[in-house]
């Protein structure tokens, strides 16, 4: 799905979280929102997912105005920073949650739900863990379960908030490939937030460098390295 962000602005109290920003994300791209904390990258992601609403500006999904769509109507697969798995549910129930939450007419049969959950568990290469609780999983496993749960709703796009932030360096590397694979298999427009320039440059097709609520530069990793648009970008990328 092609996403168009048109002059979006957001303030929290008196601080501007986002100056008016515009951005066009081509369908099927894997995009990194890169910036230090407080740069507005998470706010932008949450606006796309319908968890925050902008003061002004529009969001267009495939050319249609989606600014007023509720979080449920957006159908964005959202992976939260600490994964926000439902701690009182098993992995199976976590992944099945979105399907069970559908209105009756659109809800798959019980067997169909089970089939889809099994398939998703295979996709994240953890076929055996359906019966476990989130507390019994490692950080890396949790991240993959959160990804499967987000994919279960057949989302129109995938939004990930610091998906590797809570992991140690080794697992981080592995899961980067995992995310790339899942993106390539599903073909979903995928946007992830990170403060780690190495991660953004290695994984993303398109990197959006943000600072102080502004977009500093948008480009392919190689282009950003070759032609940083500002001193901030140059410094942030070499840090």
């Amino acid at each position, binding site marked *: 799905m092609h996403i168009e962000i048109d002059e979006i602005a957001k303030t929290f109290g008196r601080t501007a979280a986002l100056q008016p920003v515009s951005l066009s994300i081509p369908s099927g791209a894997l995009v990194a929102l890169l910036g230090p904390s407080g740069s507005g990258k998470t706010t932008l992601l949450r606006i796309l997912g319908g968890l925050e609403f902008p003061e002004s500006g529009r969001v267009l999904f495939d050319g249609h105005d989606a600014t007023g769509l509720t979080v449920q109507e957006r159908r964005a697969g959202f992976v939260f*920073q*600490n994964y926000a*798995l439902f701690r009182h549910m098993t992995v199976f129930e976590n992944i099945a949650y979105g399907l069970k939450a559908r209105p009756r007419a659109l809800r798959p049969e019980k067997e169909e739900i089970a089939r889809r959950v099994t398939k998703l568990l295979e996709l994240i290469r953890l076929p055996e863990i359906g019966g476990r609780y989130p507390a019994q999983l490692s950080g890396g496993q949790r991240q993959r379960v959160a990804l499967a749960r987000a994919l279960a709703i057949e989302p129109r796009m995938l939004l990930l908030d610091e998906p590797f932030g809570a992991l140690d360096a080794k697992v981080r590397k592995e899961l980067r490939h995992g995310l790339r694979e899942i993106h390539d298999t599903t073909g979903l427009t995928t946007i992830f937030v990170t403060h780690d320039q190495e991660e953004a440059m290695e994984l993303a097709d398109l990197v959006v460098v943000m600072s102080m609520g502004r977009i500093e530069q948008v480009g392919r990793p190689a282009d950003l390295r070759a032609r940083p648009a500002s001193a901030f970008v140059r410094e942030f990328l070499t840090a």
Partner: protein
Amino acid sequence: MFDAAHLAPPRPARRFRAATEEPAALRRGLIGLVFVLLAVLLFAPLVTVFGEALSQGAGAALTALAEPEAHAAIRLTLLVTALSVPLTAVFGLAAGWAIARFDFPGKAVLITLIDLPFSVSPVVAGLCLVLLFGANTTLGDWLVGQGMPVVFALPGIVLATVFVTFPFVAREILPVMVEQGRAEEEAALTLGASGWRMFFTVTLPNIRWALLYGVLLATARAMGEFGAVAVVSGKIRGVTATVPIAIEMLYNEYLTVAAFSLAALLASLALVTLALKTALEWRHADALSANRRA
């Protein structure tokens, strides 16, 4: 130079004491003191209550409990508890939710107000209700005209009980909700759940033990409340006298066995609540631990 330590004669081993460890005598003394206080303040009265109730045999105690007035008091107390605890739970949930999830002007004031029933004397609370709904006020007159008297009637007793028990549920669930944050709830919404579905499948299961714990505490308090209820109920024998008030009236009339039988019943209910609470703490320690940190 560096050999100095080697050349020095070995020192005799010294016993080290951790910085937070007190001398054994002091420890035993403090623990002993606590037990003595517990025995004098808690255990002895409980034994006395049951002793007095059974002083003329279990038969006499049971007969006293079977008296119509005692019956009426027990029924009223159970009814008031059954009405006020759900109200307290709903108000507590609403307050806990509002404070934990939203930022709004006056939030700090609301948090303070939740604790008000803890600090205000129940008698004052009862008096306020009488002043608000009493017969010589416009509101009270109108309510009596509608056949819905509040003071000296069931609604007043329920209101007083809700006031007194209000903080229990809100105080228990608030820290749990704050600690858990809203990520799981937001996750449910992004997965397509409606607000109600999110509440029943994510929010409520996450706070269920804290909620149950608060409800148990509120129940114990609702059954035992005296001060506020004494003022608003008017202590009409057999009509608005709850168990604690019936106990006081019987005791003032030197009906010792009857008074202590009811008191023993009330104490038993409190003990059951306490046992349930302990069982809950024991089984769900981690879910409740958020309370202790706050």
